[in-house]
């Protein structure tokens, strides 16, 4: 009875006796959910267009963020004003991500056309290792500070009085939410309204049919990896504004997997909703139940949600139902 009480009753009493704290927890969950969603968005883009599960998305986030910081430091030493240098380095970083996309397509993907998924997956893991080594060599292994204020990301916080308590919203988090929303809208527009977007969807549907109507697969892949690179850059900036940019961040990339399982591998709204569910779920579980079993549950709770979810709905919330041909 005692045990049942601590598991099923006490946490809810805690929740409702301090609603301001609950709202704060929900907000924190929302913020980390947004970041997971941004991360998952990069995966979805590439998976949609090429069927490759891009394990390297995590390291691309780190790489983009570190490039931004590195280029900024370089420009700063040339004597440019901070804001100007920050924006120039942002554009230069976008250029670097473009070059990265181009070289990945040339060196890796083009050679591996028609291989089974697992081989392509492994190739992206190889790419991850390469980028880790390369990044550490160029930028050093130490955590770097993100140039958040130079880019114009507000750093203060606003507090609201709710339910006789205080809820604190960080401005950086609000910016992250807005950026994520803008990115999703832009990508949605890009996919449904533009010529290239339609070509992307055609490639996602059927490689051969797309080729036969004159869509260049190679070109599409470069574009998609470039788009994923830009999403990675946005994720890197937002994540870096919360904490420093370090290589430890790329482990968080694995968190995108449960998000994708929840949302479906091919759905952009799914990535957002999945990210939010994971974000809310793991924060609430950690705060209200985590203490019962020793804390630190955030490392695995997302996967367990996904595991349970998979048993009931293997194709995810918004995914297409896979029908196997025998």
């Amino acid at each position, binding site marked *: 009875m005692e045990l049942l009480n601590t598991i099923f009753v006490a946490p809810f009493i805690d929740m409702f006796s301090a609603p301001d704290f609950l709202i704060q927890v929900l907000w924190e969950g929302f913020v980390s959910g947004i970041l997971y969603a941004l991360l998952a968005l990069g995966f979805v883009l590439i998976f949609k267009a090429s069927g490759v*599960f891009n394990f390297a998305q995590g390291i691309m986030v780190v790489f983009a963020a570190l490039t931004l910081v590195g280029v900024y430091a370089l420009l700063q030493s040339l004597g440019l004003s901070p804001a100007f240098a920050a924006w120039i380095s942002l554009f230069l970083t976008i250029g670097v991500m473009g070059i990265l996309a181009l070289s990945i397509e040339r*060196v*890796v993907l083009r*050679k*591996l056309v028609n*291989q*089974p*998924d*697992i*081989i392509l*997956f*492994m*190739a992206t*893991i*190889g*790419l*991850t*290792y*390469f*980028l*880790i*080594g*390369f990044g*550490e*060599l160029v930028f050093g*292994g130490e955590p770097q500070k993100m140039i958040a204020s130079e880019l114009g990301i507000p750093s203060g916080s606003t507090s609201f009085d709710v339910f006789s308590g205080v809820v604190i919203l960080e401005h950086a988090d609000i910016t992250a939410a807005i950026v994520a929303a803008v990115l999703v809208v832009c990508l949605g527009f890009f996919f449904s309204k533009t010529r290239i977007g339609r070509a992307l969807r055609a490639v996602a549907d059927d490689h051969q049919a797309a080729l036969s109507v004159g869509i260049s697969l190679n070109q599409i892949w470069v574009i998609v990896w470039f788009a994923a690179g830009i999403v990675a850059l946005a994720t890197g900036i937002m994540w870096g504004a919360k904490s420093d940019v370090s290589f430890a961040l790329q*482990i968080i990339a*694995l968190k995108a*997997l*449960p998000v994708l*399982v929840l949302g479906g*591998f091919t759905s952009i709204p799914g990535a957002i909703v999945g990210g939010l569910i994971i974000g809310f779920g793991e924060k609430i579980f950690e705060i209200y139940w985590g203490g019962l*079993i*020793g*804390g*630190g*549950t955030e*490392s*695995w709770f997302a*996967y*367990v949600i*996904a*595991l349970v979810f*998979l*048993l009931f709905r*293997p194709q995810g919330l918004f995914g297409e139902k896979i029908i*196997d041909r*025998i």
Partner: protein
Amino acid sequence: MFYRETGQFKTSYEADSAVFPILQDRIGIMIMLVIAFVAVPLLGNDFFLNTMMIPFLIFTLAAIGLNILTGYTGQISLGSGAFMGVGAYACYKMATFFPEVNLIVLVLVSGFFSAIVGMFFGLPSLRIKGFYLVVTTLAAQFFLTWSFNHIGWLYNYNDSGAIDNLPRKLFNIWISGPNASPVTNYLVVLCIVLVMTWIASNLVRGRIGRSWMMIRDMDIAAELMGVRPLYAKLSAFAVSSFYCGVAGAMMVFFWLGSAEVESFDENQSFLILFMVILGGLGSIMGSYMGAAFIVILPVLLRAAPEFFGLSVNPTNMEHYSTMIIGALIIFFLIVEPHGLARLWQIAKEKLRTWPFPYS
């Protein structure tokens, strides 16, 4: 020229279905065994044994385990590091509970604990496949490593949170603990790995292995032909985790001496998956080659600049080696997606007709 099967007639079914049907292969294996059992212990120094041979053998065993699951049954798993951990912690707990039991027995029994845990986390495989299965095995990975950290009972509530190898004797020789010499460690590991390789190679040739391969190639057809997916998949998970568990127990007791959770984290799982893919999916031989590649290459890379008389800052060398391994993985996937084992096979085919282009 010297690698010909001319004149080697098989007169019985046993001879025809032997593991090594060609005489030269049998001679080759004998030579390898002599090298492994005599030359390496006699000539190798402690550094060579500790940094190359022992980890190579241990990871080979883990790679064979994952190969059974991924290569033979077609279920991708990223939880092998955690299953190694289950074996290691089980062995540690049993060694503290039953100090008088022979350590080799404990190492093997700890595999069963790992097998049970593996079967439990293999249950979702009955409904899902591919990358979805990766998620469930990652759930196993992160949940288990969390448990190793947070359940004090598992590491006997010691302050460091690490488990260490308890000194044990076999036939009055120290085989574990600080007094054990690397040579004895090496020989014990070698024996266990060879016996388990032999068992694995027979398992995959037998009824159970065939049912695994049928599930891999086409699960629905296999089901129609009377293979029960439940038994086939769960037995693959059990055997695979058993191998990983034994490898993990050996890792703590015969190699590292003491291990923390970091030894069993997701990077370890990735490394084992690399070994399997680079070596060749669905090949026992490939597991050896992949493990050799991943374990020995970084050691060689670290030694390389000194050998060529260059001076490179050690931390930079670490980065170069990560980079080179990543690039090599991509290179091998492009050149031969079926792994080193396939390259070896092609080489043998060429050798059979050499010096002529065709036979």
